[in-house]
């Protein structure tokens, strides 16, 4: 129940004109076994930005999205999932 509420809140926060952006930063970070601090240093942002991105409170710019994708060795589309509202 708690998870459903959190997911709904996240979805509401991420919504932008009916569309919303999700990301897999946390998953890829765990696969690569890097801390939020290490990732932040690698892409020249603060740790707080990584936390906000992972929790869905903030959407990355195209430049940051590119840096993150390069860091994880994936495409932007694999890292960020753009979902149009049905």
């Amino acid at each position: 129940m708690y998870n459903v509420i959190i997911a709904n809140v996240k979805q509401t926060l991420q919504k932008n004109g009916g569309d919303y952006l999700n990301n897999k930063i946390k998953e890829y970070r765990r696969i690569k076994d890097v801390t939020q601090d290490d990732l932040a240093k690698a892409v020249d942002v603060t740790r707080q930005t990584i936390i906000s991105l992972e929790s869905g409170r903030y959407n990355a710019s195209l430049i940051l999205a590119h840096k993150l994708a390069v860091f994880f060795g994936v495409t932007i589309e694999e890292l960020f999932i753009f979902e149009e509202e049905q």
Partner: protein
Amino acid sequence: MDFRKKLRYRIIASAILLIIGIVLNILSAVDVIKSEFFGILGFTFIFVGALRIIKTYKSMTDEERCKQEKIKETDERNLKIWGDASRFTLSGYGILVFIAVVVCEILGKSLIADVLSVSLCALFAVYLIFIVILSKKY
């Protein structure tokens, strides 16, 4: 712009502020300026200028601190927060001044109402100028 260059400019600006503060204090002390306001303003300039020089100098001499400072200042989330905060502050200020103008008119304080109205119009004019400049930039 290179961040170190930016820090150098910041030190120069802080030094100018410090010098203005010292000059204001001297002029106030020798009674060239009669108002107490400028003396206090001078102290504030000295305090802020000195503090900024120390802070910026520490960042310039310490590589790790410089990097952290750069990340903090260029972090896109921070920039968005600062931009949004400025926008909300400006909107709030505009609304408050407008309310103050109406209240002053009701209370018969026409001079204050006029000054506030002009400042509000000036603010709006600056806003429009920036809209034009930024529209051409982007």
